[in-house]
């Protein structure tokens, strides 16, 4: 299936202002006439809907077209309409489920979105962030051009996003890299290999659970000394090896701003060894060591807020990321790689665990997205100079119960516990806002 870019719509952020419609009409006809717009916002306040071409991977408009007037561009993914070939049969409009290609008598022929050569006027006009251009396709195309440095067929659990994360990360950092992955899911899936076989095409090793940042310190400092400063050192560590037992060495490396890229893959506990609680386990979570019974109802304390802890160390760069927002992750990865040439870059990546958190393996990306959209896991980055910047809107979050509802480890929560989590989420966001730099 060819990849494609598309315009995404967040109905809850739309206020029906119609600026997108006007912008499209202007861009395509030079007038404000909404009939000339290829994007339409329909419905009423509180339930706005989008009528727009999705640039489908398997477009029914194209397969319905008897005259080859519609075609999906293999390079850009845009479904393009050719006026010279169109016989005005309207079969394309029958094929589309999104009202993405329509005929208006005032226009005189079918029309549809062409993504404005990758810079859509409607998205630029939407000042509430309800419309965004999803450019993940560019990322996948870029990644596909680079060598996959992770062995095929490694046995992560079904639905785990760590493999996705690792493959993207390794393709991006490239072969001149030394990878450390302390005990946990990532070596468990075979990254370092078993019995003399390796799972990675770059140098890779098991540190102890406790000393990832220290071992990378020694490696990097030696390469620097011998003039091979271009060797990238990379940690792919779980939350236990980062936030619990590995924290002292991480804190020391952060204090010294050691040049390294440290990625914490946070699945909120010791998921590899049977779902025990770590300091990153969130309040209320069922785990095998914070069980649910008559006397205990999951974890009774809050998670250590490690990204914030790292922000208040001497790191050159700290960011959070979630794989539902790959473009955001890539932007941060680019920054982190650059920063890690001279200082410490810490990326804290949200990694929902279908096995340990008890949700369907097809829901990982949804869980990631909901965590961000409810502000349960906010996306931001931080440098000492720029302060904290939210990289996804936090102003109009969904209620956190929408996130909690689909996850088994929260199944037992009382109304009081849900209210507690909602209050904690709001308090954490307010706390993060204090790190934003306002003004020039």
């Amino acid at each position, binding site marked *: 299936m060819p990849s494609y870019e598309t315009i995404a719509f967040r109905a809850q952020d739309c206020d029906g202002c119609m600026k997108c419609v006007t912008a499209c009409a202007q861009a395509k006809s030079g007038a404000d006439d909404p009939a000339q717009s290829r994007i339409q916002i329909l419905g009423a306040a509180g339930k706005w809907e989008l009528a727009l071409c999705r640039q489908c991977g398997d477009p029914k408009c194209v397969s319905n077209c008897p005259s080859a007037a519609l075609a999906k561009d293999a390079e850009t993914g845009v479904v393009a309409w050719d006026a010279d070939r169109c016989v005005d049969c309207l079969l394309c409009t029958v094929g589309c489920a999104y009202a993405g290609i329509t005929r208006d008598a005032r226009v005189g022929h079918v029309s549809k979105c062409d993504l404005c050569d990758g810079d859509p006027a409607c998205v630029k006009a939407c000042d509430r962030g309800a419309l965004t251009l999803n450019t993940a396709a560019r990322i996948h195309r870029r990644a596909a051009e680079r060598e996959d440095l992770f062995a095929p067929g490694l046995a992560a659990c079904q639905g785990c996003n760590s493999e996705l994360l690792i493959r993207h990360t390794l393709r991006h950092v490239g072969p001149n890299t030394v990878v450390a992955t302390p005990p946990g899911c990532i070596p468990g899936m075979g990254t370092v290999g078993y019995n003399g076989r*390796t799972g*990675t095409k*770059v*140098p890779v090793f098991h*540190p102890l659970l406790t000393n990832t940042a*220290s071992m990378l310190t020694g490696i990097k400092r030696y390469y620097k000394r011998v003039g091979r400063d271009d060797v990238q050192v990379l940690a792919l560590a779980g939350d236990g090896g980062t936030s619990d037992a590995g924290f002292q060495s991480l804190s020391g490396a952060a204090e010294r701003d050691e040049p390294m890229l440290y990625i914490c893959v946070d699945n909120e506990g010791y998921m590899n060894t049977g779902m025990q609680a770590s300091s990153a386990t969130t309040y209320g979570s069922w785990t095998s060591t914070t069980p649910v019974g008559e006397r205990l109802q999951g974890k009774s304390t809050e998670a250590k807020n490690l990204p914030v802890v790292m922000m208040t160390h001497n790191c050159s760069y700290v960011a959070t990321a979630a794989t539902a927002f790959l473009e955001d992750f890539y932007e941060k990865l680019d920054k982190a790689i650059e920063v890690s040439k001279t200082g410490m870059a810490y990326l804290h990546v949200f990694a929902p665990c279908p096995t340990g958190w008890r949700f369907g393996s097809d829901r990982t990306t949804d869980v990631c997205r909901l965590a961000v959209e409810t502000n349960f896991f906010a996306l931001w980055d931080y440098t000492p100079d720029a302060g904290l910047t939210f990289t996804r809107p936090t102003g109009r979050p969904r209620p956190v119960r929408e996130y909690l509802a689909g996850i088994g480890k929260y199944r037992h929560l009382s109304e009081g516990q849900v209210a507690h989590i909602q209050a904690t989420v709001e308090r954490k966001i307010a706390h993060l806002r204090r790190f934003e730099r306002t003004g020039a």
Partner: protein
Amino acid sequence: MADAAALLPNAPKTIVCDGNEAAAWGVVLSRPDVVAVYPITPQSSLVEYVSQFIADGTLDAELLNLEGEHSVLSALQGAALAGARTYTATCGPGLAFMFEPYVRTPGLRLPMVASLVTRDMLTPQCVWGGQQDAMTVRDCGWIHMYCETVQEVLDTTIMAYRIAEHRDVMLPVNVNHDGNYLSYGVARAEMPAQAAVDGFLGVKDVNWHAALDPLRPMAIDPLTGGAGGPGPSMFVRYRKGLCNGMRNALRVIEETHAEWGRLTGRHHAPLIEEYRLDDAEVALVTIGSMTGAAKDAVDALRSGGKRVGLIKVKTMRPFPVEAMARALSKVNAVAVVDRAVSYGWNAGPVYQETLGALYRARHMIPAVSVIGGLAGADITDGHFARCIGMAFAAAASGQAPDGPVWLNEND
């Protein structure tokens, strides 16, 4: 220290220093690439000396000031896997904190050198010398050599690199010197010329076998073991390889000391030293800096016609069981003086090793366990005279006391 680089000897020279400074000079002459430090009594002045030497340019090395001994050894493991010759020093609680990466170093076959400025272990809370720290980790796969004098500290630090990096060995080495007595005891020491040490140590190549280097990509330490597949045999192969390295080290330690003797004229006993043993009826067995006073006691009793000798253990791991068996075969009783205890054996660790060697020699003589010098206590020539008396009594009666003699119990 402005002209510190000029201190680097172009020719042998004589210095007067304590054992910690002697170790630091041994480090300077061995030219490690990466040094990681964290202070702890009575090691602190050693890492201060090394840090100052790096600050002054006397030693061209990367200095890592890390947040604890655990990270110190971890960073050095990383550096060694990248290709560095490394150095650090610790003792007591610091060694205990270092334990997790410490036990891993021999299995990775990293030829590191680390000084242990030996200190008694907590608790009771104590900052004084004793060998309980080093003795507690004697079975982790590190080579352990104990020094008797300031000069031997300097020389052994350098020799340790050649032993560790020998392709038949490839094991980390602890060069141990007694806290207080050697760390702060000042004596004359001869320093070899840098060029001589460079030639002696040869070209460094520490990660030919296991590297974290993008030019030679490999996985370091994949999971092994388990009940099926290639796991069990692979694990055994690694373990046996480490044991073979230890066995080879006995030969390499002897060769290295002989070569050092040819180079410098200083012939230290490599494994054990036999002192006035050939016609002896009984012997003391000693380890470390206590040996000086013990030799004085032997000399004094020899002057009085007593046929007594001494066996000093320098290399505790690998334990030189054949050499020890040969030496023990010459006497009819021994008193083994330990600066540490083996809990549960109610004796000292060197005593246990001595019993093992006696069995190897098929030489069933009475052996007295003596424990002294704990927590910085002095073991005097008077104490040793008492030990020799107990050895003679044991030889006469054919019986050794049941349980150890605690030398400083009534001091």
